[in-house]
């Protein structure tokens, strides 16, 4: 199972992919972290003429991505991105992977070093259904599409849109844009996103963060 597949959106039209493809300018250099089977990366190459590379932890994901003709390196993001030079990518993408990292601060820091801009997409634990489930049943919200439980979920970092905003503010990270996806319809909601959005997608500025200056 790849990280991207763990987000419970298999078989559904990937609206988050649509958003990300829409954000990336034609001809960009893109690094997709936790690229899974490489579907997003191949869309970026096909639709935006991007030059892309991926990093993926699972053998199955790497195999599938190579089958798509992509360049993908099997690796653990928690080890950092030391192989990549400062600002060597226009975009560094971390979609539906943040929640699986052991060292999210390190990885975000590295993304902002390596990329001119970063895209971070994650499931919003502030979503009303999740809140309701914990409130009413007294049990941790489980993934609606896949039957992960607290003991077997790859999601080790649970956060809300508010949490991520606060994190960026505390660490001086400029948020350039926020996009929310909510409910089965996937429309964008701008009112009370922390309550109403299932997924948050943030565009962060990588400018002004040379190597050696850590977030913490």
């Amino acid at each position, binding site marked *: 199972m790849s990280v991207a597949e763990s987000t419970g959106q298999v078989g559904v039209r990937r609206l988050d992919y649509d958003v990300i493809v829409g954000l990336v300018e034609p001809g960009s250099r893109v690094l997709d972290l936790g690229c899974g089977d490489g579907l997003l990366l191949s869309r970026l190459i096909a639709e935006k003429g991007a030059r892309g*590379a991926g990093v993926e932890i699972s*053998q199955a994901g*790497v*195999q599938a*991505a*190579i*089958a798509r*003709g*992509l*360049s*993908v*390196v*099997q*690796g653990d993001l928690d080890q950092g991105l*030391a*192989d*990549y*030079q400062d600002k*060597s990518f226009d975009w560094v993408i971390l979609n539906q992977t943040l929640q699986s990292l052991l060292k999210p601060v390190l990885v975000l820091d590295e993304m902002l070093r390596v990329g001119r801009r970063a895209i971070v997409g994650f499931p919003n634990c502030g979503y009303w259904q999740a809140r309701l489930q914990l409130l009413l049943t007294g049990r941790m919200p489980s993934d609606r599409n896949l039957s992960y439980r607290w003991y077997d979920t790859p999601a080790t970092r649970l956060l809300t849109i508010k949490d991520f905003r606060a994190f960026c503010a505390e660490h001086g990270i400029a948020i350039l844009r926020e996009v929310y996806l909510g409910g089965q319809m996937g429309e964008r909601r701008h009112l009370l996103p922390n309550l109403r959005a299932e997924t948050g997608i943030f565009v962060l500025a990588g400018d002004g963060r040379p190597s050696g200056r850590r977030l913490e």
Partner: protein
Amino acid sequence: MDERSVGIVQTQYVRLFEPPNELRLDSGEKLGPITVAYETYGELNADRSNAIMLCHALSGDAHAAGRHSPDDAKPGWWDDMVGPGKGFDTSRYFVICANVIGGCMGTTGPSSINPRTGRPYGLAFPVVTVADMVRVHRELLRHLGIESLLSVSGGSMGGMQVLQWAVDYPDVVRSAIPIATAAQQSAQGIAFDVVGRRAIMSDPKWRGGNYYAFNDPPVDGLALARMVGHITYLSELSMRRKFGRRLQDRERYGYDFATEFQVESYLYYQGDKFTERFDANTYLYITKAIDYFDLTNGKASLVEAFRGVRAKFLVIAFSSDWLYLPSQSREIVSALKANDVDVSYCEIESDYGHDAFLLEVEEQESLIRNFLAAVARESGVT
């Protein structure tokens, strides 16, 4: 016959580096003429753009696929991967495999006749390096009228040749697939090799390397060298699964020094079988070439060594390989990335140790087939 087999094949021979155009070796010595044994599978296309070079490991040869005769018991060493519809699809690509210089399977080596003396070279054969092996095969390509390689691939020492090809001939190599290998032989690897060489040189039948006239080669030393080597190709888990502590022909311990454990019997068998087909001096020369191998040789770093490399890479390692560790493959990947080379890396989960590169066929087959298809597409090979 299996329709995915290349069928009956024949080893071919060509004489290169005829004097006065001898090959200048890394050691500074000159050598020529050099006979090269090679095989080819599939058809070269009209614009000669679909050629793939396979590089063999320590004890391999030019016979990578198919059989030499209908009643041939064993196919070539990479038969699982080379054939119509296989990883190296011979219905699409023209595949070449050649024995290395210093070898004993048809290419000039220490057991070949020295034209100056009319007798086998023995230790008069110059020491060769992995780069020398690649130089010879580059000349073979010229002889075949091939100016570029769609890919060059191989495992173990074959992987070292792959790296050398990509570094030395960036204009020739469009993609590279180094498998279960390293950019330099480790101290541990050298240590195992030196035990093997000492085993051979300590055998009284080795006679300073001049044993060819006696019809009594140093088989004990060579078998011992192979036994040590073979241990490094397996993993603790694969040995435990295959043999455990089981006894071979006994119910209980004999409290003597007869061969009694299954693993003991297996290593003896592997050692003895090896001496039937391999030359002891070649073992010395090839392990020495492996020990000298260091892509950073004379360079500040591996990143520096890969400067100018243009091939697209697929690096493959195996989780339980302790002769060439996945971390050594990751060093290669890291240095390639630092040079902005297009690189993919896959670490295949396997219990087979270093041998996995010959045994884990399914995973490698799909990786290699898909990678080659992408390279062919990008290079406009039809």
